[in-house]
């Protein structure tokens, strides 16, 4: 293929990625040092305010109060740890392992249901989960009562737990599909050798399978961590409430920028969010590289 044609083919992609990913990424830094707003006195003549937006964000005297940035950051930490790292990844791996080299209607059913949970529209699943978690009529409490465990007031008592369970339900399919494909790419001889050697299934998993799929586990963890960190869908279920007890950083940004319409402050939150994302991604990438070098 001639170089000129090639670059002609690449141009639209570069245009989009440049305008809607790269440019916003750089511009958000600049906005975060201004008091841009769509309403009020600074709407027409935004001014540079230096670090003011950041100083307000990291005002430690009120950081952890409800509705403040620290509170949202702590909630996000629990949410990401619980739903992505401890929820989606292990559950996805477990399902992939359980159905490895098995066919049949049960596999088809579990895979299809999990995938549906993943791809159905945000708003539709949000309404379904509002019904599912309802104190008086919700299916979850009905199940708990029938198991003799009693009702739980998910929205008022455990809003953060509720959106964590929701997100496990919503996102496990990605890990499941990724690990399923990864396990499928391991040559059958690897499984058989271990079987002949008389290894128990746990040993076989730990010594043979785990090292082989480790790069995929890291890739999975990077992506689901970032996605969970940035997801906005739980807002449609709890609205971040009650009293900001399930507000994550993503919802906090939304509130500051699009409810209060303070774009300068919103941009400062966005910069901090992206910085955290970058640290996470780099951390995973480095461990991925180290694994490669030794493995």
């Amino acid at each position: 293929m001639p170089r000129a044609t090639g670059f002609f083919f690449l141009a639209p992609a570069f245009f989009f990625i440049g305008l809607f990913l790269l440019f916003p990424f750089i511009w958000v830094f600049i906005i975060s040092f201004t008091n841009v707003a769509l309403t009020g006195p600074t709407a027409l003549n935004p001014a540079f305010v230096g670090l003011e937006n950041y100083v307000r964000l990291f005002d430690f005297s009120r950081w952890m109060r409800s509705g403040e940035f620290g509170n949202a950051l702590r909630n996000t930490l629990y949410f990401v740890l619980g739903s992505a790292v401890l929820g989606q990844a292990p559950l996805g791996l477990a399902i992939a392992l359980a159905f490895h080299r098995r066919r049949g209607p049960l596999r088809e059913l579990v895979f299809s249901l999990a995938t549906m949970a993943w791809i159905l529209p945000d708003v539709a699943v949000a309404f379904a989960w509002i019904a599912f978690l309802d104190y008086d009529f919700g299916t979850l409490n009905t199940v708990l009562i029938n198991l003799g465990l009693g009702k739980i007031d998910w929205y008022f008592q455990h809003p953060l737990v509720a959106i964590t369970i929701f997100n496990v339900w919503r996102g496990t399919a990605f890990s499941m599909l990724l690990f399923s494909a990864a396990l499928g790419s391991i040559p059958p001889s690897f499984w058989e050798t271990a079987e002949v050697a008389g290894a128990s299934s746990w040993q076989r998993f730990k010594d043979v399978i785990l090292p082989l799929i480790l790069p995929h586990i890291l890739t999975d963890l990077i992506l689901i961590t970032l996605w969970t960190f940035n997801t906005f869908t739980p807002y449609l279920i709890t609205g971040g409430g009650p009293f900001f007890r399930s507000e994550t950083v993503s919802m906090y940004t939304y509130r500051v920028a699009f409810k209060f319409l303070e774009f300068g402050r919103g941009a400062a939150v966005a910069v901090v969010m992206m910085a955290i994302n970058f640290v996470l991604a780099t951390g995973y990438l480095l461990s991925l590289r180290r694994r490669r070098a030794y493995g």
Partner: protein
Amino acid sequence: MRSARFVLVRLGFMLVTSLLGTFFLLPVLWLVTAPFNAQATLRVEWPSPFTLQNFGEVFRNTFAIRALFLNSILQAGGTMLGTAVIATLAAYALSRLEIKGRNLFVYLLVLFSSVVTGTAAMVPIFLLLYYLRLIDTHLGVILVLTGGLLPTGIFLMRDFVESMPRSYEESALVSGATAWQMFRDVVLPVLRPGMMVVAVWAFVNAWGNFLIPAILIRSPEKMPAPVAIYSFYTEGGTPVLTLVSAYSLLYALPVVILYLFVNWRYGFRFFGGIKGGGK
């Protein structure tokens, strides 16, 4: 003894996996029962009295129907076309130009798009569209969605391109085809399954997205379904359950149908990045 143990293991396996299936099924059951119930509550129960009136009522809300059958289709359709075409061109060029480190490049691009995403990216993107005068336009929504989906679209497309033998193109060129003819008549037909996968994936993503149209669209006549659904609320601010559930079901249906289609035609599985050991 061995066979008894085998049966036990087998039963345990079926029990655990059935529980898993139940976990994924239970939360959405309400979307299937409530729309047909004349007196729907938040409880999942057999519709009684059974009715199709809820759908009739939904169809009388012209604003919501326009949102679903015009605006959502325009925005998701535009995004689908844009993403599939541009991702295919880019993935093809990246492969055939033999650019060194292109795998790493695409991988980093996917990572980067996962970092610059969600509400964090919406702050500058909203202002960008504001200055470009694209706020409250279908085009604005389509452009932003396409920009966000492209890196992963290219990532998905890559495997299809890489697995296409170069001899196809060489023989076309030898027989005197121009580069464009070769691309149109030889490359595109071979890449069609890949384009289908990327197109369906982009459509489903754009169709289900709430945040981007919620922020970018202001006027009611341009709102897509996920925003318009909030018109089925009473003045007191509580959802009318019969209508919200019926509308949700209509809105979710295309995604279910597309999934079943892709699963039947191609088998729903992962294409990108696995074959090369995660590179």
